[in-house]
C-alpha cells in the first residue's frame, strides 16, 4: 500500500530561493552598515571625508614621491635645501633607511661578521616556527633544541672568541639584534622565574613567601629606567678598577628580573582564579606539591592568563627601547642616532626613520598578539561562557 500515485506529493526538495534583493548584495550592506540611521550616516560621511583627506597624501608621501635609493641627503632634499628634488617636493626618504639598513639590523656589528647574527636568526626561525605550529610532531625535542641548544649556539656565534670566530664585544651590538636578544632572553627567563615567584608568593612557608613578596614589590616599585641607570652608571663606581661587567649583560639581567616581577603577578592572578576544589581534588588523589601544580593547577591557571602573559611580553618588547638611556642602541636608538649624520640631514629623514622603526615594532607586536589569540582559542577547552 506504499505505492500510490497521487501527484500532489512532491518527490524532490524545493530549491532554496535566493534572499530578497533588499537584504543582500552591496546595497543592503551599505544600508545596514553605513547609512542605517541619521547618526550612522553622519559618521560615515565624516569617515569618508577623513579617508579622502588623509589616504592620498599618505600614499603619495610614502610611495609615489618616496626616494628609495641614493648616496646621500641630496636625493631627499629639494633644491632650496641643497638637494636635487624640485621645490615643494615632499616624500619619504627610504634611501636613508636603505643606506642604514645594516646598522638598523645589527648596529655596529662588524660587516664581515654579520653572517653570524643572520645565521642565528635563521636557526631561531627554523626552530621557532615548528614549535609554534601545533600539528608539527616532536615538540619535546624541538623545545630542548630551542631552549637548550639554541641559546648556547647563539652565544658562541654572536660573541665569538672561540672555534676560530673573532670576538665581537657586545658594545658593538645594536639595532634589531639588541631588541630581539634582549626581549627573547627576557621572555625566556621571565616566564619560568615569574611562575616560581608567583608560587613562592602563595607559599605557606613564611621565609620563601616574604622573600618573594619583597622581590616582587621592590622591583615593581622601581621604574625600569632607574634599574638600567643604576646598573650602568652606579655599578662601575663600586667595582674595583679594571673589573668591567659587560653592559649588555647588566641590561639583560635588569630587564629579565623586571619582567619576572610583573609576570609573577600575572601568574598569581591565574592561580587565584582556580577554584579551591581543584587543589583539594589533587590533594585527595595523593599528589605532592609539584605534581599538583604541574598536572592540575598550572595548566589551567596559565591558560587563563595567556592574554596577560602576552601583554607583558609585548610591553617588554617595547620597553627594550629604554636601554638607549644607557647608550645601548636598540632599533629605535640606532635609528635616532643616525639622525645626527649630517650626510643624511633633511626635513624628511627623521620622519622616514621613525616610521620604519614603528613598522618593525608593529610587525613583531602584532605577530605576538595574533599568535596569542590563536593559542587562546586552541586551548579554550572549558570555561566557555
Amino acid at each position, binding site marked *: 500500500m506504499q505505492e500510490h500515485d497521487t501527484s500532489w506529493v512532491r518527490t524532490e526538495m524545493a530549491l532554496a530561493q535566493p534572499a530578497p534583493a533588499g537584504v543582500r548584495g552591496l546595497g543592503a550592506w551599505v544600508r545596514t552598515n553605513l547609512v542605517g540611521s541619521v547618526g550612522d550616516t553622519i559618521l560615515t560621511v565624516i569617515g569618508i571625508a577623513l579617508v579622502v583627506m588623509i589616504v592620498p597624501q599618505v600614499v603619495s608621501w610614502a610611495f609615489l614621491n618616496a626616494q628609495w635609493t641614493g648616496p646621500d*641627503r641630496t636625493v631627499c632634499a629639494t633644491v*632650496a*635645501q*641643497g638637494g636635487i628634488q624640485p621645490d615643494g617636493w615632499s616624500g619619504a626618504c627610504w634611501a636613508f633607511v636603505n*643606506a*642604514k639598513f*645594516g*646598522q638598523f639590523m645589527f*648596529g*655596529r656589528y662588524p*660587516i664581515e661578521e654579520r653572517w653570524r647574527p643572520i645565521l642565528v636568526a635563521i636557526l631561531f626561525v627554523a626552530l621557532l616556527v615548528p614549535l609554534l605550529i601545533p600539528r608539527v610532531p616532536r615538540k619535546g625535542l624541538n623545545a630542548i633544541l630551542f631552549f637548550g641548544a639554541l641559546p648556547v649556539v647563539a652565544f658562541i656565534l654572536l660573541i665569538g672568541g672561540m672555534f676560530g670566530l673573532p670576538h665581537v664585544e657586545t*658594545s658593538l651590538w645594536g639595532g634589531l639584534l639588541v631588541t630581539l636578544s634582549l626581549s627573547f632572553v627576557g621572555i625566556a627567563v621571565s616566564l619560568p622565574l615569574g611562575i616560581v615567584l608567583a608560587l613562592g608568593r602563595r607559599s605557606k612557608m613564611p621565609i620563601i613567601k616574604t622573600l618573594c613578596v619583597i622581590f616582587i614589590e621592590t622591583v615593581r616599585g622601581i621604574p625600569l629606567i632607574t634599574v638600567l*641607570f643604576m646598573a*650602568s*652608571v652606579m655599578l*662601575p*663606581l663600586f*667595582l*674595583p*678598577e*679594571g673589573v*668591567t661587567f659587560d653592559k649588555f649583560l647588566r641590561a639583560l639581567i635588569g630587564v629579565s628580573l623586571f619582567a619576572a616581577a610583573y609576570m609573577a603577578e600575572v601568574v598569581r592572578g591565574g592561580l587565584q582564579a582556580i577554584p579551591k576544589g581543584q587543589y583539594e581534588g589533587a590533594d585527595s588523589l595523593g599528589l605532592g606539591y609539584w605534581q599538583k601544580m604541574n598536572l592540575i593547577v598550572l595548566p589551567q591557571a596559565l591558560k587563563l592568563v595567556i592574554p596577560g602573559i602576552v601583554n607583558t611580553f609585548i610591553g617588554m618588547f617595547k620597553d627594550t627601547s629604554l636601554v*638607549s*638611556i*644607557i*647608550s645601548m*642602541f636598540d632599533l629605535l636608538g640606532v635609528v*635616532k*642616532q*643616525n*639622525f*645626527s*649624520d*649630517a*650626510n643624511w*640631514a*633633511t*626635513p624628511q*629623514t*627623521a620622519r622616514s626613520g621613525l616610521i620604519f622603526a614603528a613598522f618593525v615594532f608593529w610587525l613583531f607586536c602584532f605577530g605576538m598578539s595574533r599568535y596569542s589569540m590563536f593559542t587562546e582559542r586552541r586551548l579554550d577547552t572549558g570555561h566557555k561562557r
Partner: protein
Amino acid sequence: MKHIAIGILGAAALGLTATAASAGTLDTVKQKGFIQCGVSTGLAGFSAPDDKGDWQGIDADFCRAVAGAVFGDGTKVKFTPLSAKERFTALQSGEVDILSRNTTWTINRDTALGLNFIGVTYYDGQGFMINAKKLPGVNSALQLSGAAVCVQSGTTTELNLADYFKSNKMEYNPVVFEKLEEVNAAYDAGRCDVYTTDQSGLYGIRLTLGAPADHVVLPEIISKEPLGPAVRQGDDQWYHIVKWTYFALLQAEELGITKANVEEMKTSDNPEIKRVLGQEADTKIGTDLGVSNDWVVNIVKAVGNYGEMFERNVGSGSPLKIARGINALWTKGGLQYAPPIR
C-alpha cells in the same frame, strides 16, 4: 667616631682605586692594543655614525689622531657612545681612556670631577638663528627685541638667553620645549622668529629645515663653550700624549704639513718641519713623550692636520659648512695656538 673611621676607610679605598687608575694609561692602552674613546651618542660633525656605522667627526678623529701617535695606526680606536649623564663616570671608572665628546671645559669639571681637559679642539658658543624672511634687515642679535625665541628647557642655553636679553635691556618671548625635536619642529613651523642653541648645533639644525636658505646664523656668540677632550687626573704621561697630539695637529697646519704631503715634508730643508716630524738626528722629542719619534707623521697620516680635520667634518667639506671663525689658527686671526714642539 665610627663614622670618621668609615670615612677614612672609604677614602683609603677610593685613594687605592685612584692610584690603581694612574698606573700608566699608556701601558694599559698598549697592552690592550687600542684606545677606548668616549664619544657622543650622535652629534653632527663631532661624532656621528656614517653609513657603515663608523664614527665620523672632529671628536672621533681626535681619538684616531691619538691612536696614530701611540700605535702609528689611526684605526686602533674603539668608540664608546656615552650619554651626557654617563660621560664623566665612564672616564673616572676607566671605561674609556679619552673622553672626546663635545664637552665644555669648566673649572668645576677640572677640579671637582677630577678631569684634565687637554685643550680646546672647538671653540663653540651659544648663537642665534633667525628666519630672514620673517625678520628682514636683522643682522645682529641686538636687533631682536620683542622676538619670540625657541629654546630647549632646562639647559644652560635658556639661562644664557635670559641673561643676554636682560643685560641688553631687551624684551623677548620665550617659546620653551623639552625635546630638541619639538624645538626644531616649532621653529620650522614658524612658531618663533629666533632659535638659540650652540652655534655648531644651529648649522646642523639648518640642514633639516624646509627652506634652509631663508635662515641666517647671526654673528653674536653670547656664551663661551670651549669644547675639548679630557683625560683622568693623576696620569701625567697620558695627559701629555693627548695634549701634545692636539698641539701637533695645530703645528702641522701652521707648517703646511698635510695628509697628502707629509712624506715629502720629511725631507724638507726647513729645520722646524724636520724637528716636528722627528727627522732631526738624535731627536728625543717623541721618545721623551712616550711614543715613537715620527709620532707627528703618524698623526697627520691618520687624520691630516687640524685644518683638514675641521674642513672634512664640519667645514666646507661637510654638509654643515661651518666657517673657521675663531677656530682659525692664531696666525689667521683665530684662537688656535700651539706652543712650540722642540
